[in-house]
């Protein structure tokens, strides 16, 4: 295919990605070093009231917004270097907490709190998603052929549901004396409030994510199981391998590329955890990195959006993405090189 033809085919897509992904990325990078704010001037005014012999004069200074001819506040943008990063990371409080070896002090700082949750969330859900997905795939693979379609249909529901709604639907089961709260109280015979503690909410959020993503892992693994070489399995049987050994030495190695694929997709998605915070309304207890950026972007009471703080926290979030992507990119690069030779 000639370059010109290739460019016409790919052009529109590249243009969109350039305008709406690459350019905003550059803009965010720039914004994180600059602060745009209204100009305030200090006006010193002397007011005098008539008094006996001398006037009584008071000098007071007022801070006032500068307006242009149209009455719109003038805004200036200035370069502030790493100041926004420092204020997002709250380095003073961070070092104070580190010096005291105080985990609880560290966990009241928004950014570090969000980082802690995002990492825990990503790393805890990963093995669970892979494990549960694999278990369902193995179980369905051994089930009768006639019911497999229905099982796949039901399994797809948690995957397809709007994430915010999915989180809400689980939350509603626990709200107040909701059905599952009532059930748990009956089982362990004590009063509980699943939505009243940080750790119980976090548990629900982990559960929700595994519930939401396990179907994806299941479908991918199930498709992979269809291509397991039966001869290999049979020769393993002849060699005396039991079920666990066959799983360990034949099936899992066969599925390994898929396991890597699902893990990478899951790492990317779990690191962006956000909808759970909205659905479970956990912002008072637990927040994530992406939620932090979202919160900076939401207008506060005065209608201002903390754009440069949002940009700084977004750039910091990106660091994690880069770390997750490096192994993936290296693998793709190696495959590409192998394909060329």
């Amino acid at each position, binding site marked *: *295919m000639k370059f010109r033809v290739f460019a016409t085919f790919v052009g529109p897509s590249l243009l969109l990605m350039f305008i709406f992904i690459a350019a905003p*990325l550059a803009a965010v990078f720039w914004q994180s070093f600059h602060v745009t704010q209204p100009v305030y001037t200090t006006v010193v005014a002397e007011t005098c009231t008539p008094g006996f012999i001398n006037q009584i004069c008071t000098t007071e200074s007022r801070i006032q917004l500068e307006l242009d001819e149209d009455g719109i506040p003038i805004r200036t943008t200035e370069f502030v270097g790493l100041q926004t990063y420092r204020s997002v990371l709250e380095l003073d409080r961070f070092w104070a907490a580190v010096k005291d070896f105080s985990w609880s002090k560290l966990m009241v700082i928004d950014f570090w709190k969000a980082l802690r949750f995002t990492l825990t969330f990503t790393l805890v859900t990963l093995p669970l998603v892979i494990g549960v997905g694999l278990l369902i795939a193995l*179980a369905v693979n051994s089930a009768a052929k006639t019911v497999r379609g229905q099982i796949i249909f039901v399994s797809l529901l948690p995957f397809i549901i709007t994430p915010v709604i999915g989180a809400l639907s689980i939350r*509603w089961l626990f709200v107040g004396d909701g059905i599952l709260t009532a059930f748990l109280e009956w089982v362990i015979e004590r009063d509980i409030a699943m939505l009243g503690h940080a750790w119980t909410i976090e548990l629900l959020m982990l559960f929700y994510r595994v519930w939401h993503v396990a179907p994806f892992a299941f479908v991918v693994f199930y498709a992979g199981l269809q291509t397991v070489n039966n001869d290999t399995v049979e020769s393993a049987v002849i060699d005396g391998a039991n079920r666990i050994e066959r799983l360990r030495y034949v099936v899992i190695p066969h599925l390994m590329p898929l396991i890597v694929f699902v893990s990478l997709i899951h790492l990317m998605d779990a690191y962006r955890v956000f909808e759970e915070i909205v659905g479970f309304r956990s912002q008072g207890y637990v927040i994530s990195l992406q939620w932090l950026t979202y919160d900076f972007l939401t207008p506060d009471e005065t209608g201002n959006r903390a*754009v440069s703080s949002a940009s700084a926290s977004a750039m910091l979030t990106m660091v994690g993405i880069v770390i997750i992507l490096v192994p993936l990119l290296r693998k793709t690069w190696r495959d590409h090189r192998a394909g060329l030779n």
Partner: protein
Amino acid sequence: MAAPRSLRMSTGLRVASIGFIAFWCLLAAFPIAWISVMSFKLPVDAFASNPLHVVFGPFTRDAGKGLSILDIAIGGTAIWQFVRFATRRMPHLVKAHPPFGSTLLGWIFGSLLYGLVFVVVIAWILPSVMPAINKLAGPLGKPIIGFTIEHYKSVWIGDGFYRNFLNSLMVTTGVVTVSLTVGTLAGYGLARSGSSLAFWILIVALVFRALPHSVLVAGYLPVFINSAEFLRPLLGELAPTLYGKPFAVIAVLVSINQPFTIWMLRSFFQNIPAELDEAARVDGCTHFQAFRWVIMPVMWPGVITTGLFSFLLAYNDFLVTSLLLDATNQTMVPAIAGFFNRETTTTDQVKAVAAAVSITAPLFLLVMVFQRQIVSGLTAGAVKG
């Protein structure tokens, strides 16, 4: 083919495996099923701690809002017929009469019509006819289960949820059509090129796919809010403020979705043998003619699958739409945040539940109709490694 004896499972393992599947299916369906039951009850029943109260709704029934055996029988038959129609007849009908030769348009139009007929029959005709029949039926016409659709009515009509629905419809239709048009061309180009430029484009797309959406929105917001000033030198007085405009959100969602779309479509196009378009080229077609007359007729399964995932992204999005759309243009998912934020009374809570179920219902139908395509889409990227 029966499995060899040595590969068969022991009884214990078999029971455990069936039990596990049953448990998983319960777990997968329960939250969704439960909130749909809740949404049809008065708050007293919906949030009762006794599960039987939630299911049968004694207070709802005593308030005069109940279903008799006859209601259940007739309503159940009607719904069953709708389901059968959607799964059996509809695919054939759409294939047989595609408007303007486009199956995709046929599906959009067909599902809209279907949804409309469904709502009219279930929420309007049946409720107005049934009381009269119930009176004649005697004991069979006595209400036994509490059931009310008043929360749906007050959400959709009273709170104007239908406007959010229309906004969602507009945004998703826009995203799916633009995304597929642009993505199909790019996917085809990338699949047939094989140059290292194509490889690098795919790698960059992979990096873009991993970006958190909030990062991008942080880039859009200041520009969109002030876009009238930025664009004035170019467009004069017509320069629009992009903030709050659905078409701006469509452009954003299409772009965010592009990396995924081109990867997926590329893998579908790679499965179409290149000999096909080479034969057309030998016969004197240009690349575009080959694409139009040889590839387009055979590409629809892959395009429909990719379209489903574009639809899901646009429909399910909360972050982008909640930050970039103003209140009048809000889509359904961010709008529900408004419902549950003012959840002060239990009635408000049940209304929020009803809104949530309304959002989920189209997705449920989608899985029902397109299960095969969704599964093939999930595995398309994966099985090739």
